[in-house]
């Protein structure tokens, strides 16, 4: 390893750290496992850095390493609801690449697109989403806190997520310059 490759690696880690974490969470890792797989993937990436083609984007390459690590561990991780197989992880990686095209320098900047979508939700739905994802409350706890039935909370969350999915799809399509059909086809 030369000093140049170390410098490059530090920059790459900094740029892709948060995206890799989000990928691992989306793949079903809890905080603990995400932390471990993040470390293992970065170590493997470091070891293989010489084989990385610098003309290609680093994110998909790194997520490929993380996917292999996850698949290798899947047998001993039956307690977690991990995204199923190689194809699903590859599809997830493609979707992440679309997220990477959203406007902004950092992942936090890019997520402003989602924050805009959240602002468009009806207030009652937005409150449930906030309690679920900001306060990490389970639907039963939300139901108790805001004084509505559990069924109502589940319906609000389901409805809110459907709206958010549709809204963010529009933004991802705009960012990639593709309509939804083309996006799906290219990812398949």
């Amino acid at each position, binding site marked *: 390893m030369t000093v140049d490759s170390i410098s490059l690696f530090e920059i790459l880690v*900094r740029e892709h*750290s948060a995206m890799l974490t989000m990928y691992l969470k989306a793949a079903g890792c809890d905080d603990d496992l995400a932390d471990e797989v993040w*470390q293992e993937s970065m170590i493997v990436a470091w070891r293989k850095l010489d084989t990385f083609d610098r003309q290609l984007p680093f994110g998909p390459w790194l997520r490929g390493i993380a996917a292999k690590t996850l698949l290798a561990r899947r047998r001993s991780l039956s307690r977690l609801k991990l995204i199923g197989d190689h194809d699903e992880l590859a*599809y997830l990686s493609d979707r992440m690449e679309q997220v990477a095209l959203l406007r902004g320098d950092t992942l936090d900047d890019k997520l402003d697109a989602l924050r805009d979508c959240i602002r468009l939700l009806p207030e009652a739905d937005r409150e449930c989403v906030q309690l679920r*994802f900001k306060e990490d409350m389970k639907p039963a706890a939300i139901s*108790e806190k805001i004084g509505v039935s559990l069924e109502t909370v589940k319906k609000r969350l389901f409805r809110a997520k459907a709206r958010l*999915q549709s809204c*963010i799809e529009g933004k991802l399509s705009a960012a990639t310059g593709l309509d939804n059909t083309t996006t799906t086809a290219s990812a*398949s």
Partner: protein
Amino acid sequence: MNLDEQQKKKVDSALLDAMLEQAYAPEDLQAKRWEALRDGLQQEAASLGNATLVKSNSGWKARRWLSIAAAAAFLMVAGYFALVPSSNNAAYASVTRSLEAKLPSRHYQLTMRYQAPAWGIRTVVCDLYFDDQDRFVMRHPGWRSGEVWIGGNGEERWIIPPVGPALIGGEALVGKWLMRRDIPSEFLHLSTLLERFRRRYRLRMFENVLLTKANSETVDCEHIVGLLKWKRLDAADRIELWADSQTGIAQRVQLTWKRPQNERGPTEWTLELMDDLALNDEWFEMSGHLSEDRPVRRVRSETEMKGIE
């Protein structure tokens, strides 16, 4: 890639959840992760005799002290590995055997040594009981007002404090109580502790030793030493396991933290098998440790947990 619409929806939904989580509570762990990674890379470079990593002067927190740290790490790792008589595969296999070794029930003593600038070293001794159905009971001496009993099965957890009503609830109930006393909850499940030892530590196997137990009996044990692969918040830097060479049962587990003298926190904890007496089912239930007239309060939510000491 051949995914049907159902599979794509599942992945899209998982991605949306992860995005929402990140949008609401962006993780502030990235710099910490890099520091831990850098330590791991240093160790690897040192063990390979490759010190080029320490020449880096770019990026986040590259420091001149890295060269000193790498040299120290190299000496430490070189010294450590020079003593290693057998492969890490044997150590991994031995921990796995220990994980799978079951007894109907067993009693361990947990001796916890803490340090703090205000009061120096404090030692707390607890009793832990496990069975082969993942149930546990812990007796903690308490800090001030008397001993506390904690227990649980796969579904519920309970706490019997020295005064006031006994409490019954979910995992968070006990987790919160233990967290306030700097006790990681994995101690309540020996299998979790050993599983993490197997995954997160560089394992090495040493010569068998004749372990002398508290009752003066001796047991021939396999001796496995693990060094933390990369720095993790609150994780012990070194764990040693002594496992019965015949049965694989963990006889002693010792955790050591390298901690500056002026820093508060655990320094050395030892889990020691005391006996493997058969305990009946009642022992693992709250009712087995509770007088009939003692009130019981069910804790269902975080709000209800407020005020629980």
